[in-house]
């Protein structure tokens, strides 16, 4: 029996795979790491006393489902290096370490190899940001995963070697700037930094918290950020991007333009948290070549041919930035569409 190949075992690939398997299809899931989950594998809960809709509650049951489904075979530590078009469907050439193998009888392919975070890119961390008091938002994820404030009642532990009494969140790093190789808005960072700030507020009522936004975004299907949200939680809002960073022994000093008063001003902080944008994933050139796809001007992939005819589908952040919930909804839609196309093909 032919199989559907899903390449990439992040939340996009796993959602699609689980959906297809539940509909009785045989699925081959190919993941280059040794476990499922992708970027969000070890992200932590961002609730304060209430759920802040970070969506992580939704994902573990999907990963478990993929592990348990008999219809899904997962190849770990494996990637795809070529795709051969057959009379019916494809044969994929996979590579795992030294080993190259053929995977015949593939009827369709869903490509879901996700994104890269800005901090992972070689061009990522500019010199100015090399300082232990400056961290990436994703550095918070490990601390959040280890949080013990809900049950054990202990405050969040900073894994920093010092205890900050103030923190500033800087939005739009690695996004919306040509120097940073991303002209677009990454759509998720306003939301996740706001959630991290809420966790800090909940754990440290005395901490000084501020956020610098250029443009505050909605944060998914359910959250519409507003200045009132921040005010309510005593998080100071700055509607600009700081112009200069000064590193003093005792603190970091941000210089920004106070446009209301039309003059320069400064803000001191112990800790600077950088948002980090969603950048195109790796291997896009290869995918474009072997699957006949196109890179858009931001480096994300799109199909040239209709998937119904080509049999090649895209799911998740391989196509554009998005949060977990939008990724899951779209991946489900892609899986249903594939099934629908398969069915109408079978009828013909």
């Amino acid at each position, binding site marked *: 029996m032919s199989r559907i190949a899903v390449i990439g075992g992040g939340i996009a690939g796993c959602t699609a795979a689980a959906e297809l398997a539940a509909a009785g299809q045989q699925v081959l899931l190919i993941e280059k790491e040794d476990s499922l989950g992708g970027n969000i594998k070890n992200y932590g809960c961002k609730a304060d006393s209430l759920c802040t809709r970070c969506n992580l509650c939704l994902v573990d049951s999907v990963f478990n489902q993929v592990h348990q489904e008999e219809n899904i075979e997962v190849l770990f530590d494996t990637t795809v290096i070529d795709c051969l078009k057959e009379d019916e469907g494809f044969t994929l050439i996979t590579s795992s370490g030294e080993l190259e193998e053929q995977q015949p009888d593939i009827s369709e392919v869903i490509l879901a190899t996700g994104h890269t975070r800005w901090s992972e890119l070689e061009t990522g961390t500019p010199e100015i940001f090399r300082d232990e008091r400056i961290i990436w938002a994703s550095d918070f994820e490990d601390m959040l995963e280890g949080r013990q404030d809900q049950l054990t009642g202990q405050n969040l532990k900073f894994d920093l070697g010092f205890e900050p009494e103030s923190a500033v969140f800087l939005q739009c790093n690695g996004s919306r700037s040509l120097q940073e190789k991303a002209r677009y808005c990454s759509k998720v960072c306003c939301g996740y930094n706001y959630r991290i700030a809420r966790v800090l507020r909940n754990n440290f009522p005395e901490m000084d918290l501020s956020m610098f936004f250029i*443009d505050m975004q909605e944060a998914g299907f359910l959250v519409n950020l507003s200045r009132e949200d921040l005010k309510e939680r005593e998080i100071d809002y700055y509607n600009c991007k700081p112009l200069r960073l000064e590193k003093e022994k005792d603190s970091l000093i941000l210089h920004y333009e106070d446009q209301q008063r039309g003059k320069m001003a400064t803000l001191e902080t112990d800790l600077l948290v950088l948002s980090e944008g969603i950048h195109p994933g790796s291997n896009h050139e290869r995918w474009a070549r072997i699957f006949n796809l196109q890179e858009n001007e931001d480096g994300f992939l799109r199909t040239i041919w209709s998937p119904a005819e080509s049999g090649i589908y895209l799911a998740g952040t391989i196509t554009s930035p998005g949060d977990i919930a939008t990724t899951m909804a*779209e991946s489900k839609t892609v899986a249903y569409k594939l099934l629908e196309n398969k069915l109408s093909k079978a009828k013909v």
Partner: protein
Amino acid sequence: MSGSIEQYDVAYIGQALPDDELSQVTIPVSALTECRGEIGDFTLSFQAEDDLKQVRASNIVINLKHQEELPVDCCTSLLEAEANLAEEEEPLIIVQDYQDLSAAALSKEGLELALEVKESNPAREVYYFYQAMRFMDNNDELYEKAREKEVIFLKHDLGDLEITDKGKVSYQREDIKLELTGELTVAPELKPAAKLDKLARIFNITRGPEGYLQVDNIYLQPTLSGKRGVYLLAGARGPNSLTYEQEEIQYTLQEVKRNLTGVEEIDEEERTVDDQKCVVCYTCYRLCPHGAIQRDEELNSMKIMPLACQACNLCISRCPMGAISRSGEDEQQPKDERQVIICENSAALAREKAETDPFADTVVTEVPCVSTVKKEEIYQRLANHKSDLLILGCISESCKHLTGHDRCEQVVNTAKEDLEKLDLDPDRVNYHRLSPRMATDLSAYLADWKGEVLQ
């Protein structure tokens, strides 16, 4: 009424979606009077001319426009504005975020309008007042282009923007002073569609805090209603729905089509109401988070609809007559060890993520939702055993069954009060909340708890 009722794939309340594969019927909100049945076979009653009509539908999509409120008089709504391309002398003034931040869909409308005017008439001044430019689709490109074309963007929270009743706009900032009149277009505030209270009653679903039909809960994303087979769009769904309009429509249509290929029950258990015991008090009807219970007129008893039921067991634990039972209900025989009741959506997932099983030496009962727990069960467990009882539910507002975690906390709190009245130790039963991503916290807490019991 004739015996055979017309059957459709989908019934739209409000506007139909463009799709030529599904058989469909459209019913206006004002005409709808009743909905019975469940996914795969809903029966809708509505007023058509002078008749009461009925149709059957496998799915229901509630698709209604937002109500719009303009924050100032004397202006056009951004959602209705047509680009005026005549050789206009007066400036075009676009305002978004006048009070609250507008949704990204409104930024898109504003940018498109500004560009269209600038492209046909580059000399015309276009002012764009905003607090935050919001991005979706290609808004970032439009924004860049608009700036190239010299649309004047001004963040109005960084100064004082005032719009008079007569449509005069004044803006002041340290370095800028503007007095403008012109063609004024303002982003409306989006409010829930009209008559949603009526729909909430008819479909027996709870409304969210702002009055939309969707409760603000991650499990309902993007367009689910809590009741299987009933989908919510646009002004029925939420304030951000215009931003995700295309995704939401696509998702909903695909879900509807998938449902048509067959829907299965959520679990294998059978939940039944004993019609001899049921006194039709409507407790279960009101509490069911999934609108899965209806009155059986013939038996004069409540009835659980098996496909609609999402297997949380809340109704069973709350029926005052003990009239509802489930086939899988097993008498737990916990040994004299610590007893824990955990929810499969949070603690059970955290348990799997932990390096070593935090529940070793513990009698664990995994439930679909902590609302399964009855007060009597708490007493029984405490009476039969010396050990304490710990119940672990989900973080506030992240319950898959919407209200289950809060209902359980209420039960635990009343149990504690009762214990106190009887001079028994209320701390023998404990309720805590966690997310699936809190394995560390869970392990540490149980290690401590273990210590306490040993003492």
